[in-house]
């Protein structure tokens, strides 16, 4: 059994996000639009943040985006991330609009810049997969 303090944290899906995480485990990034105002909703939830309307069926996102901002994090939140430090945490603006937090991987931290084009890839974590960003 893995010591929980030293294991990387897993997202805990709920009824509103299960489909999103199931798709990630299949290597697919999905988003959903509001059935009333057409806004793309993120994080996945049943009601639209903009208008309160119901969220529709998921669609496949392009996985293309840009770095809005980032940090090179040296002080890990605990032992699980200590081996990775320093690592990049970024806010990624997807082509479809939503802003997601991801690590920028598969490049040197010092090569990351604001405005840099990235694409989504997936990092296996347990039985799940986490969307991550890499240089496009």
């Amino acid at each position: 059994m893995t010591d929980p303090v030293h294991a990387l944290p897993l997202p805990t899906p709920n009824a509103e996000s299960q489909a999103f995480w199931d798709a990630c485990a299949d290597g697919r990034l999905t988003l959903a639009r509001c059935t009333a105002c057409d806004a793309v909703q993120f994080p996945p939830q049943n009601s639209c943040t903009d208008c309160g309307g119901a969220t529709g069926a998921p669609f496949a996102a392009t996985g293309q985006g840009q770095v809005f901002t980032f940090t090179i994090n040296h002080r890990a939140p605990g032992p699980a991330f200590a081996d990775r430090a320093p690592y990049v945490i970024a806010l990624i603006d997807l082509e479809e609009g939503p802003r997601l937090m991801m690590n920028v991987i598969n490049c040197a931290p010092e090569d990351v810049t604001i405005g840099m084009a990235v694409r989504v890839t997936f990092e296996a974590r347990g039985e799940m997969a986490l969307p991550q960003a890499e240089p496009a």
Partner: protein
Amino acid sequence: MGTSKAAITGVANTACGKLEGSTCLGLHAEVARGAVADAGLELGDVDGLLCAYSFTEPHPMLASVVAEYLGIQPAYSACVSAGGATGGLQVMTAKALVESGMCRHVLCLTGDNRLSGMAPGAAVAALAQFGHGQFEVPYGITIPAAYAMVARRYMHDTGLTASDLAHIAVTTRNHARRHPDAQMRKPLSHDDVMGSRVIADPLRLFDCALISDGAAGILVSAAPTGNGAEVRIVGAGQKNTHEHLISAPRDLQSFGCKFSARDAFAEAGMTTADIDVAEIYDSFTITLAIELESIGFFPKGAVGEAVSGGALDLGGSLPCNTHGGLLSFGHSGAAGGAFHVVEAVRQLRGQADDRQVPDAARAFVHGDGGVLSAHVSLILERQS
């Protein structure tokens, strides 16, 4: 100003730092008695109690737990939880309670012994859980990393530099050196800050708040108690725009401080030009820089030059965080933002000793919780 505004009649703080042998509830009791005594009253006079939350005493009904410990049964008690905005929000809530006639004396208490009462690193780990459980925490987010992302973009957009931020850390330390209860009283140079280890680039060690044991008590009353100068809460405002960084205003500039301050100034019938001393939340140097510009004390892009020119010093245009702030006085959870209120009251009463701003009559106080998520602004005025 109208005499119907609520008054702050008592304040108290413990020392900040590693208070060996302290307990969360013991710290609460120390400032409860201190604030009430400061007002010339007794605990039995308190008919309202506002508490917050604690890492070392994580009971969801902390106000009841504290009342039990103190041996009081106030007519009204509740917990207020808004991170660093808690102290300000307690005062804003207490103001409403006494101005409505529901209470006469509302005691606002905050405190934690998260430095001595937790294992090393445990507070940092606990604070990381403020991130979104599914969409932030799995990426190794920390509170400093979240603020670092805000900082990098703000610096990119406005020209603010790491050197400017270092000046904030130095100015704040110089203030703390004049306060006997401050946790960090050693001299700190600009080179010390710039040479300190990177926590989350671009933020370095001395850009970040401390972790402390400590507590603060503030008594809000319907009328002055005749003990000391009369300090009224003449304006208050709140604005929360988000909780998690992924849902923050898209430009990472349009934070709630702009709006909470606007409402507080409108209620007070004042502008930034009327303020003699400011006590503004400084969880990180970038927090203070953004809030000073967003609230309107300095034009956007001008705060760097202002702070490096001494604007926030005792003799500057806006003496700020005269107790030493979260960066150097101390940061013990919800009490962190309450210390700013305590200091503002002392300044207005002329009780700030070596750090007194001469004839300070009007103070601006601001707290922020989360990642610039929850904002409360207060304007306090000494009545002549």
